[in-house]
């Protein structure tokens, strides 16, 4: 597999209630296209990750909508929905199209408009990622599901609420210098611990915020790059996807995300790497507990040692294996359908040496994008091309 990333861009993340989904997506797409010496008419296919447009915007069919608005209504398109893993999954579809020789230039991105509709509608919409009968009908919310995962994890391993809070402190610190980040102020461990409860042990600052945002990539085949004088710096070296039961109750170990473990194994095998080769990661920290499960799923440490990895500073931006130098979902924000591609945008910046929290000599980066409480997961390995 040899797809190259020729352009990568995100809008600022936060509040964009003056724009519609198509306008925000256009901003990201045109920024990504502008980084390449191409125009929209060079694009062969469009894949758009979006989760809740039908509820927040009364708008489905986002793939066709975006291609239309960009002035290329005749290309094949699809909206890709896999809850919070929507656009990570869309990236894999883009690579499929290039591998199959069906496309040379694919615009793949994501967009989510969450601000305007308010917290109650969003809590309801996010719950659609869960099992309606077994979880939502009992009054379980999305933060509630992760709270149950945290309880099981903290019950199994010697992990405290302070340990969880360290993830938020680290990611908020990273968010300060990222210009697209929704939160650009640090929080203290006390502020995290004393924040109002959402679903204990998770408080407000253990949770990612509600976010409007869009991200886009231009993915090209090596042949197209060679024939058009493009020399992208980053290639997609491996990808892996896997699944698990939709309802948390049906999993043997609720403090473990098996789909992400399997997705990581598949991506590493495809890229021919081992976890020790990774220089930098963007992981799906929708809640503080999720980052601990993520670093364990990616094999950065043994199971149960995710908290130690964080509290000893190994995942800090100056640590041994920096995680979420962007600020992650907790600081950068989590426009659900855009998050997977936004993670790749951040890793591209690291591998191109232009990240605001640059990790010196980054050559291999990994993204970890999870849908729901772990029923779908997609991992990508990115490498410096050439």
């Amino acid at each position: 597999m040899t797809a190259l990333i020729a352009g990568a861009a995100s809008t600022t993340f936060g509040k964009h209630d003056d724009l519609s989904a198509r306008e925000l997506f256009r901003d990201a797409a045109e920024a990504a296209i502008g980084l390449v010496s191409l125009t929209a008419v060079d694009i062969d296919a469009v894949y758009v990750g979006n989760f809740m447009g039908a509820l927040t915007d009364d708008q489905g069919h986002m793939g066709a909508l975006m291609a239309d608005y960009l002035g290329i209504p005749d290309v094949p398109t699809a909206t890709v929905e896999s809850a919070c893993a929507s656009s990570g999954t869309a990236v894999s579809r883009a690579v499929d199209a290039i591998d199959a020789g069906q496309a040379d230039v694919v615009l793949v991105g994501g967009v989510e408009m969450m601000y305007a509709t308010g917290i109650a509608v969003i809590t309801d919409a996010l719950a659609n990622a869960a099992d309606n009968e077994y979880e939502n009908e009992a009054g379980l919310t999305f933060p509630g599901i992760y709270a149950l995962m945290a309880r099981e994890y903290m019950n199994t391993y010697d992990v405290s609420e302070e340990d969880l809070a360290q993830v938020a402190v680290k990611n908020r610190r990273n968010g300060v210098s990222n210009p697209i980040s929704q939160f650009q102020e640090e929080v203290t461990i006390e502020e995290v611990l004393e924040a109002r409860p959402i679903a204990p042990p998770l408080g407000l600052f253990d949770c990612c915020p509600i976010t409007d945002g869009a991200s886009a990539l231009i993915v090209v085949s090596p042949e197209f790059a060679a024939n058009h004088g493009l020399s992208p710096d980053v290639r997609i070296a491996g990808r892996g996807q896997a699944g698990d039961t939709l309802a948390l109750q049906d999993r043997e170990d609720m403090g473990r995300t098996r789909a992400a473990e399997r997705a990581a194994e598949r991506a590493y095998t495809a890229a021919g790497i081992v976890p020790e080769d990774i220089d930098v990661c963007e992981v799906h920290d929708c809640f503080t507990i999720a980052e601990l499960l993520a670093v364990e799923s990616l094999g950065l440490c043994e199971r149960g040692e995710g908290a130690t990895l964080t509290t000893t500073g190994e995942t800090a931006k100056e640590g041994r294996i920096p995680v979420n130098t962007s600020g992650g979902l907790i600081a950068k924000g989590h426009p659900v359908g855009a998050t997977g591609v936004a993670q790749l945008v951040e890793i591209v910046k690291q591998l191109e040496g232009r990240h605001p929290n640059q990790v010196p000599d980054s050559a291999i980066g990994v993204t970890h994008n999870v849908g729901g409480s772990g029923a779908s997961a997609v991992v990508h390995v990115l490498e410096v091309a050439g």
Partner: protein
Amino acid sequence: MTASWYESFAAAVDREEPQYRRCAACGESGLPPRQTCPTCGEPEMIDAPLSMSATVVAATEIHVTTPKFEGEAPYTVVIAEFDENVRLTGQLSGNEDVRPGDGVTVGVERREDWPPVITFTPS
């Protein structure tokens, strides 16, 4: 639209004779009522009686909720495990604190115009 098996399960809990699915080939157990066993792949999942009592695995208090449960927060949601190695999610009845290992009894709360809510009452 709520799945018909969910309504049937709730009705069976009301009669105090709930059922789950067990694999005739490998013994794996679980809900929802699948036909094919997710562990061994045989299409041999059959109905079997489920006990009414279970043990708390994990619990959390929901402070920010969906429009449907607005005004009821905070309330507690529990995942509990039955002797048959089946886990189920339900809302805790009453205001008692529960911890992992505590015993609970499964029940159903009926509300007008709503699907049934699975509940657990400390036993």
